[in-house]
């Protein structure tokens, strides 16, 4: 009986999360709450300013919170302008999201086709001493596919929810006592910089002469053809799907922190843990 109840609770929780999922949130509802929180911050500021207590530590929050409330209100009302500016900057830099998403899926398809070839060869030769290098190659390819998949997920998240991420950043900035100031600035910086910069990844790679979309021939009819395929594909994928994208994401993260600091008026903290920087 207990397990049945647990299951029901779990399903309920899962449904709850589905309702509160990112795609179900409306940016304008978030902005509406942000506006109310900005007003709350402002009036709390006036309350602290009026307090008849000769304690500077308490009273200094008055002017701070009044200016925070005004700043948050300005950000809430500039939401559409910020989105427009992001789109204009993206257009000026040559950002093209559909083309970038096609590039990612093409890259994934190429990786999967090579994976299929190597996997097929491994199945044919079975567990012999010759299979060891092929297993190693398969491990490498699995890693590349995972990285590309992760890039696709991050890209889809940013492409579909840039407005919501900015609205959530404004919401964090609107919280009283500067609770979410660093995270709010970071969230806005992250959304703005990644929306503009992420689709420029293929251009960044081609600047360094890295082409991971080249058509590796998977028509294997000799050991030499297989050797040629792997000796071309693996180094290119290491460079083009691991090293260079990591460096590029590091650059974008640094820029996000900078933009976040500029928005938050101090230091900013990114909403995701970035370990590779």
């Amino acid at each position, binding site marked *: 009986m207990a397990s049945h109840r647990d299951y029901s609770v779990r399903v309920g929780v899962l449904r709850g999360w589905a309702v509160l999922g990112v795609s179900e949130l409306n940016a304008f509802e978030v902005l509406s709450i942000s506006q109310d929180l900005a007003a709350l911050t402002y009036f709390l500021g006036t309350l602290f300013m*009026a*307090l008849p207590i000769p304690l500077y530590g308490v009273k200094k929050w*008055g002017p701070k919170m009044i200016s925070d409330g005004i700043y948050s209100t300005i950000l809430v009302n500039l939401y559409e302008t910020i989105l427009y500016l992001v789109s204009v900057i993206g257009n000026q830099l040559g950002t093209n999201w559909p083309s970038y998403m096609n590039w990612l899926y093409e890259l994934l398809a190429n990786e999967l086709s090579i994976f299929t070839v190597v996997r097929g060869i491994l199945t044919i030769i079975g567990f012999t001493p010759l299979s060891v290098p092929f297993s190693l190659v398969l491990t490498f390819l699995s890693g590349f596919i995972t990285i590309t998949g992760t890039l696709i997920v991050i890209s889809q998240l940013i492409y579909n929810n840039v407005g919501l991420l900015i609205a959530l950043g404004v919401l964090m900035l609107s919280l009283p006592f500067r609770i979410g100031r660093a995270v709010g600035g970071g969230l806005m910086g992250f959304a703005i910089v990644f929306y503009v910069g992420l689709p420029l990844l293929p251009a960044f790679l081609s600047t360094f002469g890295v082409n991971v979309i080249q058509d590796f021939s998977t028509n294997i009819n000799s050991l030499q053809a297989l050797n040629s395929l792997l000796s071309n594909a693996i180094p290119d994928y290491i460079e083009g799907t691991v090293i260079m994208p990591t460096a590029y994401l590091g650059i974008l993260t640094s820029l996000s922190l900078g933009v976040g600091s500029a928005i938050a008026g101090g230091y900013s903290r990114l909403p995701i843990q970035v370990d590779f920087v």
Partner: protein
Amino acid sequence: MSGIESFVQQLTTQVTEIAWSIFILAWAVGWALRGSPIPIFKVKRTGQDFIEDAIMAAFWLAIGTTVFALVSYVAGQF
């Protein structure tokens, strides 16, 4: 969402009411200290500070109430 929104709005209204009450209290306390027959300058100066802060707070409260009401009205028109 509307639950959170109405909660925050209610909280803001209460905070505004308390802020106006504190303004009156600070004003009264400030004048009481300033006008008190105590020959200590620091106490009188504190009273003066309370009055100044209370006036500034009342000014920002009045401006804020007007501006936020205006913003809500304009936003509600779209």
